[in-house]
């Protein structure tokens, strides 16, 4: 979708002339903690900007229509589908992708839990699952396994790794709850990518 389609379709029977090269728009985003200035065509989705311009291919394109969750990233700490927003619409915001969750060589607790619980098979949905799970814990609305299933329903897994995904998230959620009881400070500093 990063190319304009001049193709004929019903109601637009005439072949359009090749579109002129697009006017690029300047966008500044904080990507995984570092400011980046990009020049993008207005119709570039955030997903395509991440994958094609910034070479951050951890974020996946599954459907490109908001239906699968593979493209989930965190924008200012909130999970969204990067395929259904334009890069220009996110001007000035902080984007955290799967590449930005680990601290150096130390995996994010959610990444560790996914490995520990074997919460994937092919792995294609996994970056989206992990970013979504991190966003969900930040929202703080889930308490039961059924809550996890409902609030993670925007992330499909064709391999059907759901039981292990729920178990992995559960583990991180419980660990955070225990942490929060110990030190109040930690509760506000939970998962959410490098700040």
């Amino acid at each position, binding site marked *: *979708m990063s190319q*304009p*389609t*001049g193709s004929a*379709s*019903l*109601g*637009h029977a005439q072949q359009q002339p090749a*579109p002129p090269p*697009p*006017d690029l*728009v300047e966008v500044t985003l904080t990507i995984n903690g570092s400011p980046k200035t990009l020049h993008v*065509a*207005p*119709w570039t*989705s955030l997903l395509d900007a991440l994958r094609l311009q910034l070479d951050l291919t951890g974020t996946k394109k599954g459907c*490109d*229509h*908001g239906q699968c*969750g593979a493209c*989930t990233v965190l924008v200012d700490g*909130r*999970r*969204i*589908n990067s395929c*259904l*927003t*334009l890069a*220009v*619409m996110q*001007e000035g915001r902080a984007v955290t992708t799967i590449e930005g969750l680990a601290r150096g060589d130390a995996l994010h607790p959610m990444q560790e839990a996914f490995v520990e619980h074997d919460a994937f098979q092919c792995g294609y949905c996994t970056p989206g699952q992990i970013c*979504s799970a991190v*966003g*969900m814990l930040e*929202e703080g*609305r889930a308490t039961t396994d059924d809550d996890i*299933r*409902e*609030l*993670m*329903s*925007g*992330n499909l897994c064709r391999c059907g790794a759901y039981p292990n995904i729920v178990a992995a998230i559960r583990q991180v959620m419980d660990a955070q709850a225990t942490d929060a009881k110990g030190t109040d400070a930690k509760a506000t500093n939970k998962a959410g990518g490098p700040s």
Partner: protein
Amino acid sequence: MRAFSYDRPDGVDAALRAVAGQAESGSPGSAQPPVKFVAGGTNLLDLMKADVMRPDRLVDISRLGLDGIEETDGGGLRLGALARNADTAYDERVSTRYPMLSKAILAGASAQLRNMATNGGNLLQRTRCYYFYDTGTPCNKREPGTGCGAIGGVNRIHAILGASDQCIAVHPSDMCVALAALEAEVRVTGPRGERVIPFAEFHRLPGDTPQIDSTLAADELITAIDLPPQGFAAHSTYLKVRDRASYAFALVSVAAALELEGANGATIRSARLALGGVAHKPWRDREVEAELAGKPASLETFRDAARLLLREAKGRSHNAFKIGLAERAIVRALAEAAGVEHP
């Protein structure tokens, strides 16, 4: 996606100037106005990728500051048009005073989408009719005058009430079904000044002009949605029936709200009932609501109401099942709202 230019005006006036002069083309959701507002983008960008919507210019209204939720003088709540669906549903005033609305919003889409989707955009989302999305097929809503692919085609998700021989599409929103039952009002501003549209008059039936979804003009901006003080918090619910347990559009949904009186709340004082997934707009039937008033809150009353509401329902080759489904969903929703045991 086709090429377009992008703008982020810094105020409501500038946003209105950007769409000025295109009132003739109908509602923002209709035909092909050359300039479109974009809010969350979750419906418009999807339709642009499918080449169903083809604006030349997008005007980003998401940072206009219309995203608050405030008390109104009359004791109701004003929901900013640009407030996100998730922030609206989880707002404590909404979830305690209008639980049916929170429930309806949270029954829609996914957590990620609700974080992006705005209240104004939710109202103006377009149908999920398969033919509407498929530019290789005829569709009167997408290309007026080309015919309707769904009539005589695959119409499992289509309307059983209020359809026309031009279009049998349904409005897909969950939030709007609750807003219809609550008698919300849509606040709008435009070159002809401000106006307030009662929710029942916001969406329209397809008739001969299915390309027009709503009574909003293409040069108007929704600024807020007002909720009246009566939220039916004690006796209301939203029931959504769909093909999977989550992240699917409604086949049928019901917003049911009751005021009960008498010993143990055994009698219905007033009722509101709105259906989703069955028509081109959230379906409300005041005759049925009036019929419920004064009746005992019993399964028998609810069954009578359901049959009355569906008296003119019309099934097609694949969606006739919705009539029985709607009947049972109405009974269950009313029973849940009333706290009456149901099978």
